[in-house]
């Protein structure tokens, strides 16, 4: 698809030839994720996380469909039906723990995938559409995860739904009617639960559809790579299969290992104890917190504490949504022609500050809304917006970048291991074998 030297699909026997002439689906798959998709030969392990996110979505859909066979979306019986799954459905406990922790692992791999894109400039031309579609997937994931957390109808489900839909209530004029419209009622109730269940079942398939567009858009220019240098010729690429299927295979095995370790041995570690208390509209939990993967955004929401022209709450809501919306403009906020952070020393520094900043925001987002956490969240919020909206636009103009290698194969063949190494620790990273081709060539 992407390059003229891509190996075309050849039917192996009469049957596949017969299929190919009538429905060239095997040809399509071969060109998308088979031997017919040439991929830069210098990808490091951070390029595994897209496939891992796909695996995580598959786990969610498979476990979710079976859970839905036993779950009861009724405000009076939802909590009991989840416990019925945990106690009476054969292996139900496994399905539910896999689904609950699967959501966390989906977010872990997706966050790494996003930060890989931020560091290696995967959002830059000609891959802007890949980035934009990825952000659409991210938004859909957040909506799906939020609604899924409401379904067990525990205390955090109920009060989380109330707080998050309450955010829309901060919008002037239409806010209150909007919140009522979203909930289908004045407070989370049967109408809320039923619609959240319906949408929670629907959205994963929408995500799957957007993933197809995401991969399609990726295949037009082809995959990026750690040098950020364009593919110049056949010597720069290897076929996706068997090279990256083998590499992804190992990554999937390690992913499953981590996933199983948490699911079987600490299944409630990432959850909140209060969600094992049935929802009670008359009893507010001491600390209402969303799931961990929302904490950085929750910290930004709570960082605005002073009314300034607009009410503080509205500022928080605008900032929280703005923190995600601004990512849609990233390809144009950072027009530096050099893609990879490996060749942008100042960008690299700010990138790592951003990583630490988001981790700190995540920590304070899960902490109670008291000092010093609020002050830390305010500092973190200031850096977050300054990074994307002020530092990057200026940096792309003034930064002196390092010289790029002439081509991928030059960087690999001439032993410039640093060029292909992950996250800017050239010597240490290359020792761990992330640039396998350079050793074998």
């Amino acid at each position, binding site marked *: 698809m992407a390059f003229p030297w891509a190996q075309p699909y050849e039917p192996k026997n009469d049957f596949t030839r017969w299929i190919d002439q009538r429905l060239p689906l095997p040809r399509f798959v071969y060109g998308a994720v088979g031997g017919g998709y040439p991929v830069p030969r210098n990808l490091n392990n951070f390029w595994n996380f897209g496939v891992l996110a796909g695996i995580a979505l598959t786990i969610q859909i498979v476990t979710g469909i079976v859970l839905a066979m036993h779950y009861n979306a009724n405000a009076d019986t939802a909590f009991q039906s989840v416990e019925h799954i945990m106690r009476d459905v054969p292996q139900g406990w496994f399905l539910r723990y896999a689904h609950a922790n699967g959501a966390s692992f989906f977010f872990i791999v997706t966050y790494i995938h996003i930060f890989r894109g931020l560091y290696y400039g995967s959002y830059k031309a000609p891959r802007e559409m890949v980035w934009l579609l990825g952000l659409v997937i991210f938004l859909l994931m957040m909506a799906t995860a939020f609604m899924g957390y409401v379904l067990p109808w525990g205390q955090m489900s109920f009060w989380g739904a109330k707080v998050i839909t309450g955010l829309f209530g901060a919008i002037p004029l239409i806010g209150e009617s909007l919140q009522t419209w979203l909930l289908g009622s004045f407070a989370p109730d049967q109408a809320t639960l039923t619609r959240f269940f319906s949408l929670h079942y629907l959205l994963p398939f929408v995500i799957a559809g957007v993933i197809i567009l995401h991969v399609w858009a990726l295949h037009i220019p082809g995959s990026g790579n750690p040098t950020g240098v364009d593919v110049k010729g056949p010597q720069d690429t290897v076929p996706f299969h068997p090279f990256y299927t083998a590499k992804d295979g190992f990554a999937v095995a*390690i992913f499953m290992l981590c996933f199983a370790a948490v699911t079987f041995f600490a299944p409630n570690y990432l959850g909140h104890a209060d969600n094992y208390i049935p929802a009670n509209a008359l009893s507010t939990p001491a600390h209402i917190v969303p799931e961990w993967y929302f904490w950085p955004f929750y910290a930004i929401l709570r*960082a605005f*504490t002073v009314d300034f022209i607009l009410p503080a709450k509205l500022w928080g809501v605008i900032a929280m949504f703005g923190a995600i919306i601004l990512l849609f403009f990233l390809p144009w906020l950072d027009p530096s022609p050099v893609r990879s952070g490996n060749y942008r020393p100042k960008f690299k520094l700010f990138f790592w500050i951003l990583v630490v900043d988001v981790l700190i925001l995540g920590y304070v987002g899960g902490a109670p809304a008291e000092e010093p956490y609020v002050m830390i969240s305010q500092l973190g919020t200031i850096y977050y917006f300054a990074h994307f909206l002020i530092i990057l636009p200026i940096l792309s103009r003034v930064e002196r970048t390092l010289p790029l290698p002439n081509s991928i194969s030059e960087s690999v063949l001439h032993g410039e291991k640093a060029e292909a190494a992950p996250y800017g620790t050239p010597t240490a990273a290359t020792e761990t074998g992330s640039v396998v081709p350079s050793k074998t060539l």
Partner: protein
Amino acid sequence: MVRLIGILIGIGFVVVAGISLITGVITHLTTEHVEDAAHALHEEPRNYDFDHDGPFGRWNRQQLQRGFQVYKEVCASCHGLNLVAFRNLSEIGYSEAAVRAIADQWQIQVPSINPDTGEPAGRNALPADRFPNPYANETAARAANNNALPPDLSLIVKARHGGANYIASLLTGYRDPATYRDHHGQPVPEDIRPGQGLYFNPYFPNINIAMPPPITADGQVTYTDGTNPTVDQMAQDVAAFLTWTAEPNLQTRHRAGTAVLIFLIFASILAWFAYKNVWANAKRTVRVAGPLDPENMARREAAKDESGIAG
């Protein structure tokens, strides 16, 4: 243009968040900080050693049966267990006949109807029944307990931070507020001492709990297996039993998890060698025998011409 607008919006957010920060700092510096007295007195749960702890944890059935006895004789008069059925007791080692006897002799009857008149009535429990609630409804429960509601205990271990450690600490944590000294040696301030119908317990989140001390003296329960029923022992036993009611599949999960991890470690090793093997041949595969091999390219061209498919 996008960048200019971006910078302006960025400055806007930075300024507004900055105002919040400065206001917060000023308020923080100018207001006096009094640590919440209840918060200062609150104790984290003590660490107990349960057989079901850790990745290879197994049920101690003797302990679970003792814990059930404590539940039955001490807790069950106020607390329900409405997610657990009598038949589930066979999982902790009771025989079928024993389960039937326990159900039949349970102190609280299962709500039913009189088969002749249709009037509400009660009947003895069957193994298939869940543990009946001690109160007919919430109002009755509150009326009997000084307006406090005894929570159902089925999930209590998973629904509280600290789990079984918290339960055991709480049950043994009742203290006399008049003589109690916290770890700084400070007495309990007068204004947060328990009022009418409340009891001082530093393991409870807000210090004063409505539940009267349930386990008060050694020997309150007579164990059939000869274990010495100290207060500490009874508290740990019932905490272990409630861990089982909250997570009856814990042992199955640990066993399955061990098998799954062994399988996945093996699979990872195989996947690693498969990956190394494929990439070790990268040069030969790509340059000589792969799609870029001149011979292969010629063969492919020929095949394309033959099938009439345009590349």
